């Protein structure tokens, strides 16, 4: 086998999982299409995939889905900035002040597993039916993983690195900025990535619930009009956005942290 052939072979093998994954998705749609067209599945509950794909054009032209997307994205990014500032700072402070950590860590962890989206009526009362209710819901829901991962990152800094800092007579501030913080950055990024995904889920959910804002409201609108194909198409779009979001964050992380 020539080198080129080997290379070709290996790239072919690398893309196999992706192809199989995509293939099974296509197969799933084909099976659904078949079941619906033959009447085995009620088309008033699940519209056929062909119709869903067909209604994408309508979503783009009539419902201005890209504008909706930008609205949701803006909310996510705002929540993300707030998470980075308050979540990381919160984690740092909790690590710094042991009493605070002992007092709060348990309920922060409990918050991480609670369905905080149910708190939306409270937020509606506090912030009113506007974009801040949505952003705050995303922010609060995503705060626990960011705080917990920040604490984890700082406290798992290897002892010997801290000792190196001490042996060079670093001040506490230098010890933090030159050693603890960079050492925990990879873990903090994991927390932020998780947090941003939590935020996206809760932001779209809240938009749906309070019928306001971007993609979530669009789904609510379409469902209320009983535009089933459109609803499903919008849901597919949200899933697509989340996957892209996730992949972008992963890429950004690898780009920001040169060598793991």
């Amino acid at each position, binding site marked *: 086998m020539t080198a080129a052939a080997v290379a070709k072979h290996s790239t072919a093998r690398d893309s196999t999982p992706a192809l199989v994954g995509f293939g099974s998705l296509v197969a799933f749609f084909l099976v659904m299409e078949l079941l619906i067209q033959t009447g085995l599945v009620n088309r008033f509950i699940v519209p056929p995939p062909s119709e869903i794909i067909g209604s994408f054009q309508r979503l783009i032209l009539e419902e201005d889905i890209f504008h909706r997307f930008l609205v949701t994205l803006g909310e996510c990014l705002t929540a993300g900035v707030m998470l980075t500032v308050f979540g990381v700072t919160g984690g740092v402070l909790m690590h710094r002040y042991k009493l605070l950590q002992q007092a709060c860590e348990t309920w922060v962890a409990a918050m991480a597993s609670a369905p905080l989206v149910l708190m939306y009526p409270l937020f509606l009362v506090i912030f009113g039916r506007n974009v801040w209710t949505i952003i705050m819901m995303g922010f609060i829901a995503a705060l626990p993983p960011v705080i917990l991962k920040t604490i984890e990152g700082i406290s798992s800094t290897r002892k*010997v690195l801290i*000792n190196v800092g*001490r*042996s*060079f*007579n*670093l001040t506490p501030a230098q010890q933090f900025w030159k050693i603890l913080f960079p050492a925990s950055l990879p873990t903090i990024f994991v927390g932020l990535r998780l947090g941003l995904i939590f935020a996206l889920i809760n932001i779209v959910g809240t938009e749906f619930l309070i019928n306001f804002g971007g993609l979530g409201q669009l789904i609510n609108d379409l469902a209320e009009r009983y535009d089933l194909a459109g609803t499903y198409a919008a849901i597919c779009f949200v899933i697509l956005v989340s996957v892209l979001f996730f992949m972008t964050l992963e890429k950004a992380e690898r780009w920001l942290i040169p060598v793991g």
Partner: protein
Amino acid sequence: MAPAATPSSGTAILVADNITVRFETPEGAILAVDDVSFGVRPGEFLSVIGPSGCGKSTLFNVIGGLLSTHQGVVSVAGETITGPHKSIGMVFQEESTFPWRTVTDNVAFPLELIGMPKAKRVERARHFIGMVGLDGFENRFPGELSGGMRQRVSLARTLASEPKILLMDEPFAALDEQTRLLLGDKVLQIQQQLKQTTLLITHNITEAVQMSDRILVMTYRPGKVKRIVDIDLPRPRTSEIVSSESFGRYVAQIWSDLREEASRGMRADEKHALNEGAAS
């Protein structure tokens, strides 16, 4: 051969006086270091040798000012230390490079702390990187280097701070024999040039005899001073001295001391393991 006695602190720059360290563990207190006293004269190369687990790293941490639960006093130039002392530079046994910094930025770390301008410190860092034989790796991250290369980065980083007293805890343990000998030559050369007072912790007898003016042999648990051996070999020394006859005599002598301790240690560990086995 000098017995283990407290040297007069007048001539020594670094003095350890009756150092005792106990660790409280769930299974009871461990006496890691027991009443160790010695002094290091300015410009002297002293090695501490002993079997694994005898308390060498513990002693290293006490002298470096990183441990404060000990009894006894460490003083540098007559001044009792209460924490890391600015004239002591430490090279740790564990991997201690900063994975988020390139080799150059790792080595330039102490220079950055004293506020040296960037261009100047990069140039200084280059100098020390070359000294440990890592030219060409300046812009790599530690994650891209071998364990031995990373250890050399840590060494260069400490050398870059130009400490008056250099404290090293098995810095060459991760290296192969040839690299160890060559790097040993290099360290010796630097040490002789800078007249740096050096305390090397090792369990390699050849390395200790090759480099040291004196060797402190420790006992196994509790770690006491068993013997201090003067190495009366001519300087400058290179790794070639290894094949001389008097070198062999020193090695044989220290080995017989250490063999006693090491086998005592292994018997103790076996007994411990047996007890554990009986208990479970």
